[in-house]
């Protein structure tokens, strides 16, 4: 694990596409610049959707960790 401080963990495991991404967007919008959010998702779509949205919205994808049956996306609000 990276040493970044996680502001909030969103457990979206079991949610269907595009639920995990929408929950991340909601959290980022309410957060402060510089804060780091973590989303846990078992949705296959998240693997492409979250990196695509983070790049488009100009935030920072700090890390993607594949765990057992789900992935952990760590995103820093950059603006």
């Amino acid at each position, binding site marked *: 694990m990276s040493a970044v401080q996680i502001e909030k963990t969103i457990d979206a495991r*079991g*949610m*269907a*596409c*595009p*639920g995990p*991404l*929408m929950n991340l*967007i909601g959290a980022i*919008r309410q957060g402060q610049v510089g804060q780091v959010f973590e989303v846990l998702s078992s949705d296959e779509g998240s693997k492409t*959707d979250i990196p*695509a*949205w983070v790049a*488009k*919205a100009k935030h920072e994808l700090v890390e993607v960790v594949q765990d057992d049956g789900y992935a952990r996306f760590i995103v820093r609000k950059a603006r």
Partner: protein
Amino acid sequence: MTDEQDKPLSLVMFSGTDDKLTAAAVLTVGAAAMGRPVNLFLQYYALDAFRAGKVNADHALSPEATATQAPIIRRHKGQHWIELLKQAKDVGEVNIQACALSMDMFGIGREDLDPIVDGIEGVAAFMASAAEGPVVFI
């Protein structure tokens, strides 16, 4: 020059079955999240599904859903299309317009529509909003 990724996505919603409405709502929320303006033009059976008090009713499935697929679709834990559209409006620029011709055909008034519908317009106005972006018929 407008970047291809920034061009509006315009969906003509014709079908009023829950599967097609959901498919259209997923496209809408994805495009809105990615920063693209989305225009929805409600015609025929899709317009009927947006009647006030009827959005949460059972709108059945399209004929291509087989007897095997239908129960799988009904059991799926995904969100209702109206919730997806609300999320899309919340994160992006989504304009939902009722087709004036379909309103007239079915005798539907503005007060008969769910408040998520932004207004009533004609096909030329919809095409003007679509501008250089793709128009998709669902």
